[in-house]
């Protein structure tokens, strides 16, 4: 049994990947994410600094608030900094925030949910009431309240955004665990003397994995959006950090004066990443849970399939189609 496990896991992964890669929208989404990661990794190559200041903070006062041109693709901001350069560097921050927030909130949320669901009783009650309290405050407001208290810094933004992300995992995992707990294979494992920890880790978690993966993908997008919103109202990162939300905050000051490029491009960057993540998440959901997708196709695709398949069985010529 121990020997078979890796093989089975691998084929399961391949099966998901096979379904995933058939979905063009999911692939486009993944392409966007990969592009963002590349931008973040090679930010200093794509938008290098000049030795004095980093690539995102090269001020040029004589060249401020320029509209997009061949020189400055996305124009320049009020300090004459190239907006494109700042966006490229900004992807580092956004991806960092997304990744850290998702990992931490997922670990905490999954642990809380698993404990609550598996042990029930008092532990369940206490944990779920705490979750209820967090959920009673709208996500963004909670983040605002926390970061207002903690003060602006990257770590504090991550904390502020992360707390609001915990309930989703905890609830999801708890629901899964509660329904799996009573199932026969868990009973069977228990009857041969598996410990609680082993039961959760080996038998329950692998089965609860799909919704967590989907939740994490969507959580990544939410984290980026909330972090940007915090910076936008001045509670996120301090200047000159090229955070996309902070750039929008700069843009707002010049919005009515007609400097649209300072608003358009950072916002596009946020929307682009979130769009990519959502597309990938959608594809992942379909690939992990093929039930949700089964049993249908467009009329055109159906006609094509029917013709192709009938031709294949050589009955196409004389088959009289009736509806």
């Amino acid at each position: 049994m121990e020997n078979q496990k890796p093989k089975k896991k691998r084929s399961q992964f391949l099966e998901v990947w096979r379904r995933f890669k058939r979905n063009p929208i999911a692939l486009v989404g993944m392409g966007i994410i990969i592009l963002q990661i590349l931008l973040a990794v090679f930010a200093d190559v794509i938008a290098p600094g000049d030795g004095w200041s980093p690539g995102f903070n090269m001020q040029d006062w004589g060249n401020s608030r320029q509209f997009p041109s061949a020189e400055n693709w996305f124009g320049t901001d009020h300090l004459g900094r190239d907006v494109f350069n700042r966006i490229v560097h900004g992807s580092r921050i956004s991806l960092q925030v997304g990744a850290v927030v998702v990992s931490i909130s997922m670990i905490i949320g999954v642990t809380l949910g698993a404990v609550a669901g598996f042990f029930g009783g008092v532990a369940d009650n206490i944990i779920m009431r705490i979750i209820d309290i967090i959920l009673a405050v709208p996500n963004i407001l909670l983040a605002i309240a926390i970061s207002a208290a903690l003060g602006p810094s990257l770590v504090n933004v991550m904390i502020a955004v992360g707390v609001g992300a915990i309930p989703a995992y905890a609830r999801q995992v708890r629901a899964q665990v509660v329904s799996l707990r009573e199932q026969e294979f868990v009973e069977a494992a228990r009857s041969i003397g598996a410990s609680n920890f082993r039961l959760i880790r080996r038998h329950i978690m692998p089965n609860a994995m799909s919704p967590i993966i989907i939740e994490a993908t969507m959580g990544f997008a939410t984290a980026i959006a909330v972090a940007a919103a915090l910076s936008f109202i001045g509670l996120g990162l301090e200047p000159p950090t090229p955070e996309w939300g902070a750039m929008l905050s700069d843009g707002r000051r010049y919005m009515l004066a007609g400097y649209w490029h300072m608003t358009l491009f950072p916002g596009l960057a946020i929307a682009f990443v979130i769009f990519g993540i959502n597309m990938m998440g959608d594809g992942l959901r379909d690939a992990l849970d093929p039930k949700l997708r089964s049993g249908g196709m467009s009329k055109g695709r159906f006609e094509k399939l029917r013709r192709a398949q009938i031709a294949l069985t050589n009955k196409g010529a004389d088959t009289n189609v009736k509806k």
Partner: protein
Amino acid sequence: MHKYILRRLLMMIPVLIGVMFIIFVLDYIRPGCPSRVILGEAASPEAIARVREELRLDDPFLIRFGSFVGNALTLDFGRSWQTNRPVFQEIFARFPNTMQLAGMSVIFALLMGVPLGILSATKQYSIFDIIANFTGLLAAAIPNFWLGMMMVILFGVNLRIFPTSGWGTPMHWVMPVVAIGASSAAIIMRMTRSSMLECIRSDYIRTARAKGQKESVVIFKHALRNALIPVTTVAGLTFGALLGGAVLTETIFAIPGLGRFMVEAISQMDQPLVQGGVLLIAISFSLVNLLVDILYAFIDPRIRSQYR
């Protein structure tokens, strides 16, 4: 049913005390002394000591929290450190605008999301479905405050169709409502679609068709009523997101609502205002969720019988 509502209202109390605890702790750990916020940096030590005494800042944590909760129960959140007016008055002067904004956005999101979701589900895999789905994904990805800004630039500054800021006339409402509601509309549309698809494939729909029922009745009577059950939940949760979104959107459109007021209070470190505002929003969010659960009972008889 009455019993159920009463029970739910009672269950809100510990949750709200929890919320108060969180905002109180957040205030407690915040660096800097409130008396300096009130009096300014140049205040004399005597004045500071007087304010500390007045605000009971030197009392033990639990006693301070206890009196905070006690005061909150009588709707006394103290006085604004900036204006020295009662927080309750300040908040309630602005709260209706925020509720109006969020309420109109929910209605906008439902009016857009539900019909498009139904259409998309009944025409699954059609071009319309693909476009609607794609647009939905896109709309869900756009940060509402950015959408608001782009609308200001396009329709306010360049085309001059709508006023760029302010509140009061329907012309003022259009852009903020669309800005906040767009992503919720997208979420509700996608939810309606998937819920509808699931219902359309269910056995009781086959039963309805086997009765000889028209497809339109099958969809709008048999499937929709069931499909709306999960959509109701999402709409309720969306209301929270819309209240949160109002904070940013009110700032952009200079709407005299609670959200913008709180953002200003935060930057001025006016803690009583922030606390009162967060609590009020948490209360209204909880009440909306209760309302959604009651609505649930009207749609779903299975839940209705649980409530008895």
